[in-house]
C-alpha cells in the first residue's frame, strides 16, 4: 500500500512551522536588546511581518533561525536609533581600554570569588545584568545576545550582523569581559563578593 502524500502546506502554515520553536528566543532577544521595553510588540511585529513578506525568498533547508534573526536585529537597530537612545558607553569606572581582551580579563581576588560562587551575584542582579547588556556598544550587545540567546556560531553571527568574523570574535570577547566587570562591580557594591582571603580571615 502506498503512503498518502503529505498535504502541501500554505505559506502561513509553513512559516509558522519554522517560527514556532524560535518564539521564545526571538522575544528574549528583543526584550534584552531594546532600549524601550514598551516597543517589544511593535518591533517583533515589524520583524515577523517583513520576514513573512519575504518568506518566498527563504530557501527551504537553509538556516531559518539565522534568516529571521537578521530581520529582528535590523528592526531592533532601527528602533533603538529612532528612540534616539544610542547605546550608552560605560562610565569611567567600567571603561575598558581597547587592547587585547585576554589581557583585560578581570582577574584578582574578587574575580576569583565570582568564579567560585557566581550564583551569589547572579541570583540577585537581574536588572543589573539587563542594564549592563543594554549599556554595551551596539555590536557587542548584538553578538553577546545572539550567542547567549540564539546559540549562533561565529559565522552565523557574522552573516546576521553583516560584519567580519574577526569583529564578531572581538565583540564577543569584549562584551563578555564588560559583563563580568559589571557583575564584579555589582557584587562589590552590594557586598555580595568578598575576596577569598577575607573569607578565610572571617572564619578565623
Amino acid at each position, binding site marked *: 500500500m502506498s503512503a498518502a502524500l503529505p498535504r502541501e502546506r500554505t505559506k502561513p502554515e509553513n512559516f509558522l512551522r519554522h517560527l514556532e520553536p524560535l518564539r521564545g528566543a526571538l522575544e*528574549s532577544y528583543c526584550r534584552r536588546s531594546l532600549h524601550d521595553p514598551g516597543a517589544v510588540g511593535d518591533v517583533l511585529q515589524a520583524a515577523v511581518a517583513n520576514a513573512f513578506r519575504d518568506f518566498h525568498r527563504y530557501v527551504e533547508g537553509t538556516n531559518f533561525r539565522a534568516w529571521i534573526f537578521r530581520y529582528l536585529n535590523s528592526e531592533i537597530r532601527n528602533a533603538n536609533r529612532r528612540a534616539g537612545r544610542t547605546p550608552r558607553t560605560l562610565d569611567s569606572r567600567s571603561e575598558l581600554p581597547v587592547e587585547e581582551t585576554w589581557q583585560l580579563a578581570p582577574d584578582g581576588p574578587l574575580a576569583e570569588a565570582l568564579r567560585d560562587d557566581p550564583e551569589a551575584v547572579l541570583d540577585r542582579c*537581574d536588572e543589573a545584568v539587563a542594564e549592563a547588556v543594554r549599556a554595551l556598544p551596539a555590536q557587542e550587545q548584538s553578538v553577546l545576545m545572539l*550567542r547567549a540567546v540564539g546559540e549562533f556560531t561565529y559565522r552565523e553571527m557574522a552573516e546576521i550582523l553583516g560584519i567580519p568574523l574577526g569583529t564578531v570574535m572581538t565583540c*564577543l570577547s569584549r562584551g563578555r569581559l564588560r559583563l563580568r566587570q559589571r557583575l564584579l562591580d555589582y557584587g562589590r557594591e552590594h557586598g555580595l563578593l568578598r575576596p577569598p582571603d577575607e573569607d578565610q580571615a572571617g572564619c578565623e
Partner: protein
Amino acid sequence: MTCDEARRHWNLYHDSEGDAELHFRIGEHLATCPDCARWFDQESRLEHLIAEKLRSGPETPELWDRVLTECGIVRRPRSPRHLMVLVGVAACAASLLLAWWGPGWFGPRTAGSDLAVLTASWHERLVDGREPVPFRSHSDLEVERYLRSRVSFPVRCPPRRDAGFTVQGTGACELANQPAAFLVGHVDEQPVSIFVLPREGLEAFPHQRDAIRREGTHRCRQGPYEMAASVIDRNVVIVVGRAGPAQILRVLDAYGSYHEAHSSERGRPLIRLDRDEIVDETGRGKLAVRPSQRPLRRRGIALGDSPRPTRADWLTGHAATVPRGV
C-alpha cells in the same frame, strides 16, 4: 602552549570555534595544568549561568497572538460581541426562511430517520468488516433458521439463488431503535446487503413509508449504493449494494422465495399498502405482477416449469406476465 596562550583562546575553546589543532593543543595543556583546567571550568560555568539569565523569560502567548494576527499569519479570533451579532443575524435569517417556505418545506425527511442513510451506513460497515457478521453460512435454510431464533418478528429469507444473490451470513441489528435483521451476500461479485424490518417499523421512517405507499417499490441511490425498498408480507425489505438497479430489484423481488427445498414454501400474500389488505399471493403494491393462469409461452416454448417472472423481469420488459390492474 603556555597558560596565557591557553586562556587567551578560552572564548574559542568554550564556543567550540577555531580549528581542531587549537582545541587539541588547549586540551593537552589543560591535561597538564590543573590551575588552567579549573580556571576554564569556572569560566565556562559562569558563562553558562550568564547565558541562562539572558535567555530567561518565557514567551508571552498574548504578545505572539497579537503579532501573528496583525501580520495576517493567523486569523483574527472573533470577539464574543461579534459572534453574538453573527448569531443574531443567522437566527433572524433562519426565521425568515422558515416563515417564507413554511414548515412543510423540509418535507417528511426531517420528521424521522432516513432508512436509506442508515442502511447504506450499515452496509458499508458490514462490507468493511467494521461490523461483524454473527452467523456465516452459504445455506439459505441455516441462515433462516438462525435468524428466526434471533429476531422477534417474522422473517422469510433469504432470496433464492437464481435471483443472483449468494448468501454469506446474517445477523440482527437495530435501525433507529427498530429491530432489524440483515443478510450479507454477493450479486455478481458485488457485496449486497438485505435489511429486513417488521412492517410496523416503517412508521419510524416517514420518508420511505410515504415513498413506498406512493411507488410500491421505492428505488433510490445513497452515495455509491443502489437501493430498493418495499413491503413484502409482514416485512419491510431493503436491498443495498453496488450492483445494478435491475439486479437489486431482482433480489428484492426474490425475497422470501427459496431455492432449497423448504417445508414452509408457499405463495406469499400480497399486501396492498394503499388499502392495507392482502390481495393476492404474489407481488406487492402498485407494481405487483401476477403470473397469468394459463401456461406462459415465450417464442413458442412452454414456460410452465420456469421460475416465476420477477418485478425486474417486468420492469425490464422480459416478464411474460400480466400486470395487475391497480
